[in-house]
């Protein structure tokens, strides 16, 4: 119970930070961060997805926009997966609750797995 109450200020701080960053993500996409080759695009999309926060449906909408603007499905998939599996913004809460070592490694592994899952999904989709 006490640990729950101790998390509350961190939680409020993270929500304030998330509020500040919500509008920045679409701007980053439109600034031309993507469109420089498959691997670079996957990394860029993974990074933007990691920084983003909010409902998964928002990532689908943005991913749809990316597809329309010519970004390939590998990058779009990395973006969608990173959006829901990596949490840079939630890191302070995760670190406070579960330990910083755990939080940092978990997010780093999730960051790399986002690209792996994107590759596996699009490749296996090609076989069907």
């Amino acid at each position, binding site marked *: 119970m006490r640990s729950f109450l*101790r998390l509350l200020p961190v939680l409020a701080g993270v929500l304030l930070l998330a509020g500040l960053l919500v509008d920045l993500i679409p701007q980053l996409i439109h600034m031309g961060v993507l469109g420089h080759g498959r691997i670079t695009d996957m990394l860029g999309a993974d990074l933007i997805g990691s920084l983003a926060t909010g409902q998964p449906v928002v990532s*689908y909408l943005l991913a749809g926009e990316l597809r329309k603007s010519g970004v390939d499905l590998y990058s779009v998939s990395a973006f969608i997966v990173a959006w829901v599996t990596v949490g840079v913004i939630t890191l302070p809460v995760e670190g406070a609750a579960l330990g910083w070592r755990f939080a940092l490694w978990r997010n780093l592994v999730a960051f790399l797995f986002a690209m792996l899952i994107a590759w596996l999904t699009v490749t296996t989709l090609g076989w069907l």
Partner: protein
Amino acid sequence: MDSNAPEGTDKRGIPGGWLFLGGMLLLYLVVYALSPQYALGAFAHFLEMTQDILPILLFVFLLLWAFDLVSGIQERLGQLSGEGSGLKGWLLAIGGGILSHGPVYPWYSLLQHLQARGTRPALIAAFLYARSIKLPWLPLMAHYFGLGYMLLLTLWIAVLSIPHGWLVERLTSQKSRPESGCRQFCVAWPRPPSTDRRQRQRQQQGHGHEPR
């Protein structure tokens, strides 16, 4: 200092959580001075998100309260997901992750309780990874990207939550290794003989750390 120690356990001074919150409020003041419109918009997002997570936060609070009332539940859950939990533990973590609802923030507190009662880091990581499968949103993903894409992506996330958890556990369980300047990255190298007397005795008794 143990980097795994939860923040805020230090009884001296202002807890880190409050300092972080203070820093964020300060940041809002700076942003407001630069662009009042952006700061107000961000604050509106904050209120929206807070409203979004309040029900689930209340749910987790009640859950923890109930756990505290019924002694033994946390220990039982800890056993079910502890070292010897095997396949049952993985299924519990992945199934629980997929079925868990709402924003992640409130769940951290519950996971923290379970972690303290012996739940494997691998299962906590797998739970958090499997949480990315959002059942209510799957039809919408299928609508945008096709049924095949949605099924494959969901399947790969569920399957890879196991190696993800395993890898995170391997990477985070290096804390008991001796000081050698490469504590986190020299995983495959044999350990030099310990200079610590107590550790040497442990190694002679067969409890030494083997390279993972």
